[in-house]
């Protein structure tokens, strides 16, 4: 089947809340998903990602805006008229039907011939690694198996769009990692346009072509995982995607797009400054823990000085908490050799791996 695009256009959904009154679950959300693309809506709970997904599915009607699937305006179509596959967080398997019948359900609704149904059910169960499970019931299956059935049931109808609502959050950590890989592989193989919702940034980064970060009902930034990680547009995105140290700094000089700033009493060249930044302004540096290096103080006398306040040895990496005066810095150090470990209380010099450190204006939330 030809892959189609999904376009969400200025979609809003209001709720009346007992305490807060009228609140927007989603506010003027616009999202373009290209044919065959895997897009994830990522955000904390209550950010509107699930509401938006349910409006794409047709489970909820938007108060404003349009939903277009494959060039067709489906805003006023019911879910059963949209040709979508939906995978629920709780799997939503029909408890009164066998696994085979669960998967066959959408085909029976479409009046597919019996032999064809049997063939396709077999095929799709094999595809998700559950060949021979036709006659089991959902209460006899593990969480991971139930998730596969839910997936099989959604893709067997060859939907134009596949929608996932936090599909892995009921699974344990190990299974979650395995399943997200399977979902990604399957999506690639079927080349099916997919919209995925999760609050887990690592999961989002693992599966998506593109991520739309949402907060308080709106999309705050869109981009690939590395885009969001290396070029966050706001403190919210910087903090939500990965760990970060947000350090206040003073602009000393502006030259071209970049310039020089003072941070922790030391001057540092940065490749890009916010367009509005002038000399004397305060800005914030987005410093990832792995973008900071710490060295024993005696080797780094010219660098900002600090003390190791905490150390966690995690095998492949070491995490330090370093105090520089009032500021506490999270630092991650990889492939440290046994002799290189710094002790708690050790004085250190702090090195920033510039110059492509993202810089945010002071006032972004």
């Amino acid at each position: 089947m030809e892959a189609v695009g999904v376009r969400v256009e200025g979609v809003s959904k209001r709720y009346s809340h007992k305490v807060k009154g009228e609140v927007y679950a989603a506010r003027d959300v616009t999202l373009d998903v290209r044919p065959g693309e895997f897009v994830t809506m990522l955000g904390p709970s209550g950010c509107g990602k699930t509401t938006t997904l349910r409006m794409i599915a047709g489970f909820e009607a938007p108060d404003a805006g349009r939903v277009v699937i494959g060039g067709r305006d489906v805003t006023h179509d019911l879910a059963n008229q949209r040709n979508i596959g939906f995978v629920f967080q709780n799997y939503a398997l029909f408890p009164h039907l066998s696994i085979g019948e669960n998967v066959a359900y959408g085909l029976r609704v479409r009046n597919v011939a019996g032999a064809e149904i049997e063939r396709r059910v077999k095929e799709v169960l094999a595809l998700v690694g559950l060949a021979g499970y036709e006659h089991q019931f959902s209460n006899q299956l593990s969480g991971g198996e139930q998730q596969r059935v839910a997936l099989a049931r959604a893709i067997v109808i060859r939907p134009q769009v596949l929608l996932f609502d936090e599909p892995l959050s009921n699974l344990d950590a190990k299974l979650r990692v395995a399943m997200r890989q399977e979902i990604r592989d399957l999506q690639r193989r079927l080349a099916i346009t997919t919209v995925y919702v999760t609050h887990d940034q690592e999961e989002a980064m693992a599966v998506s072509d593109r991520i739309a970060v949402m907060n308080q009902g709106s999309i705050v930034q869109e981009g690939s995982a590395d885009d969001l990680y290396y070029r966050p547009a706001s403190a919210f995105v910087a903090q939500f995607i990965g760990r970060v140290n947000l350090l206040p700094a003073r602009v000393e000089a502006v030259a071209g797009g970049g310039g020089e700033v003072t941070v922790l009493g030391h001057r540092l060249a940065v490749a890009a400054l916010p367009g509005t930044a002038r000399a004397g302004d305060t800005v914030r540096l987005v410093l990832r823990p792995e973008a900071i290096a710490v060295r024993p103080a005696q080797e780094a006398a010219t660098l900002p000085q600090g003390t190791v306040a905490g150390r966690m040895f995690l095998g492949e990496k070491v995490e330090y908490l370093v105090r520089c005066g009032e500021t506490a810095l999270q630092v991650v150090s990889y492939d440290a050799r046994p002799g290189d470990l710094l002790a708690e209380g050790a004085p250190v010099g702090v090195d920033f791996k510039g110059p492509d450190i993202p810089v945010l204006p002071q006032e972004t939330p």
Partner: protein
Amino acid sequence: MASVAPAAGPARGLAWARQDPALTATVLVLWLLLGLFVVFPLAMLTARVFWDGGHFSVAGIGAILTDRHQVQAFWNSLLLATLVGLLGTLVGFVFAFTVARGGLPRWVVTAVDGAVLLPLISPPFTTAIAMVFSFGPRGLITYELLGLKGVTVYGMTSTLFSEALTYFPIAYLALRPILAAIDSNIEGMAMSLGASRMRVFRTVTLPLCIPGLANSFLLLFAASLADFATPLILAGNAFPVLPTQAFLQITGMFDLRGGAVLSLVLLVPAVAVFVLQRYWVSQRFYVTVTGKGAGQQPFESVAPWVRWALVGACLAVTIVIVYLYALLLYASLVMAFGANHAFTLGHYGVIFTEGFKAIRDTLVIAGFSMPLGGLYGVLLGYLVVRKAFPGRRTMEVVSMVNYALPGTIVGIAYLIAFNDPPVELAGTALVIVACYVFRYGPTGIRTTIALLQQIDRSLEEASQSLGAASGTTFRRVTLPLILPAFFAGLGVVFIRSMTAISATIFLVSISWTLITVKILENMTELSLGPAAAFSVLVIVIVFVVIGAISRGLRFFRAPGSEPVTSLLGG
């Protein structure tokens, strides 16, 4: 997002109606039926009371309120209901506590359940009749055993006794899950802090049960207030109560308006109790009944001697029940109870010849009411929980009205509403079937609502996302999952169609009559044998049908779903 509800979009207005024509049609038909069979009769009843010669009048109410005899009936009703509430709740609690905490063997519990079920599924006046057999002028105990002459069984004491015996199972069924759901660790904790067993009971167990006790008191109060047949048989002239007064006003004095006024007076305490029970007590439960027990083995929370006392009390009540029903069976098999105790099947001969019409009519009416009532309950419950349409809450409330009102009011309202054009249904089977469907179908509504609230909405959304329209989703996903509610609805409607009398006694006619009415006629004509035989027959039919339904329930039960153990437990 748990506490938010979708904002009603007035801008989109009737969008729901265009999107889902099947839903729209169903909603409209249901509203039409509710209007005709719930709202219209009550409006006609109220009009008959307050509308006199073309203008508003309270003269009818005034006449009743100044009649000493009727005022006495009002207070008698309240007194009787209060006492039945107290006594029935006490007995019900003793049973529930003994079963939950007594550490009884399983088979004993099953036997107790069986005996307790007996009054619940019999016609409501069965114990009243058996009381007459036992304690009447020619009663087994009063006359045969004690040789007393000229004793009278009629009056408040025996009415109270009979009603308490008939209705305490309601308290038992309401209290048992609550006691079972109390985490026994809480009691164990109190004990580990040094409290004695008695103190634990007094300071922990009992306080946790208080909302349940209040709830069961109100349920019993309402049941007694609405009970019509027991006082008619047992209360006698010295102890008039409202439902019987209303009945006598209409059938004895042909004063339809007076009956209407009396039934409306009955409405006041009935509505008060219903409101109190639904909106006050039910929100004060400490214990959430989930259907699962607390899990742990209850510890030895009852001292041995207390346990024996409790078991003894339960046993005594159970024996009284079994004795009364055995007496009923015996009376149906002897020539003339109290005079000639020779064995005969003659009474059964009588009911299957002269009384056959009543049996056939009752079965036809029950046969139609059962599927209609079951379907009505499931459909309305489903719409109310799962579908968004204007007036959803109102529909739920209106659907509960006939169920909550005493049968006497419903019966008189139907009598007034359907006796004359524009809707002349008096004397037809349809009016009786409608009465049963809208009066007992709501049990199915409640069960459906309770079940649906446990079934995650995503199941239906999954079906919809797979391409099924709302009708298909209902038929292939929702309906199989709420089948237990459907069967429970079937069971209740059938039982009540076989045993009810308070509303339908006003609706029977030459063309359509009911077994229960025949029993009452036989009792007043003192043909006790046929009355007993009819009663036994009803109980047997009800048992057989319930057995069949339970079997059907097991057959249809989804392989993955929870087992449904009792029809009446929910």
